[in-house]
């Protein structure tokens, strides 16, 4: 067996060092109060259209702590409640909230065009972004996080409801999935966990 060439050896060390670095990032334990999903869910990745009509991807939100939530604008009760609660969470974070974004992903792209989404998210919080797009791209994002939605049968006037997962997914500023929150969880805990990520993930 031939010995490794010093150049190859150096490369191997470099790879090992990188691996340790990545490992550090992955294992960076934070005392979350909500469900810690670090290392158990894929990084934030999608290809959608924001509420200004601009094509965006997951990497456009690197540098921000992201709260991802699936819903639709014709949902009169639970979605606006969740968005209103997230607005309160943002207010409680104070200036730190500037480094956070609420990504509201529509599970009803037929009715939720960028202008509809723009008016909607702005009624809740300046840090909220509305994402819509090709139904296949939305489905891909939903499946990536094992989220689900179903369009219910049309009502008498063509109006319809969409049943959807109520979970919120929190990503750190590097795009790694960290925390899973449900509407039943305490708001204090969500504020606490976002604080950890905002204090930790953005050394400035």
């Amino acid at each position, binding site marked *: 067996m031939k010995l490794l060439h010093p150049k190859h050896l150096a490369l191997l060390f470099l790879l090992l060092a990188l691996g340790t670095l990545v490992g550090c990032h992955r294992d960076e334990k934070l005392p979350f109060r909500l469900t810690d999903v670090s290392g158990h869910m894929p990084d934030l990745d999608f290809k959608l259209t924001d509420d200004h009509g601009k094509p965006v991807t997951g990497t456009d939100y690197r540098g921000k702590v992201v709260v991802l939530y699936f819903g639709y*604008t*014709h*949902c*009169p*009760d*639970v*979605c*606006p*409640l969740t*968005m*209103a*609660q997230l*607005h*309160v969470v943002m207010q409680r974070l104070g200036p730190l909230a500037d480094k956070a974004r609420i990504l509201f992903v529509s599970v009803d792209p037929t009715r939720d065009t960028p202008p*509809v989404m723009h*008016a*909607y998210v*702005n*009624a*809740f*919080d300046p840090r909220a972004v509305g994402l819509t797009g090709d139904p296949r791209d939305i489905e891909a994002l939903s499946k990536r996080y094992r989220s*689900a939605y179903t369009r219910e049968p049309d009502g008498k*006037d063509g*109006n319809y*409801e969409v*049943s*959807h*997962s*109520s*979970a919120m997914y929190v990503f750190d500023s590097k795009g790694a999935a960290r925390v899973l929150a*449900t*509407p*039943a969880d305490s708001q204090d805990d969500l504020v606490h966990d976002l604080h950890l990520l905002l204090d930790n993930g953005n050394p400035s």
Partner: protein
Amino acid sequence: MKPQALLFLVTGLLLTGAAQATEAEHVRASHAWLRVLPGELPAGAYVTLENSGDQPVALKGASSDAYADVMLHQSSSEGGMSRMAMVDSVTVPAHGTATLAPAGYHLMLMKSTHPVKPGDTVRMNLKFADGSTLVTDFVARPANAVDAGS
């Protein structure tokens, strides 16, 4: 029938009517508000109903001049899924309270007849099972409100 007998019968009926108040007369509404969403999006309306009577009463729905369509709905969350379904009625127990609040029972308001802005008052007729109605003013609140406010 003699005129006298008829008089007795009419008086009797009137007395019965007076003794048996309508469902609406036993109900007091408070914390009535609705969430205004942009454009033509449906809005949710919420209210607390207090029944001072000895019998349960049933809220069947509501109507308003401000919205062409008002439906009684219930949101539920099972297995992590948010769902919404129409309901026939909401029972207010005798000497008890029923709450229509976010993530539970609510009135879904659709097709506003004119733009409703936060701060406006929207008059609604709450309809009960016996056909009686209770006129209630709902305060329009901004989209990001979490409750009726002060």
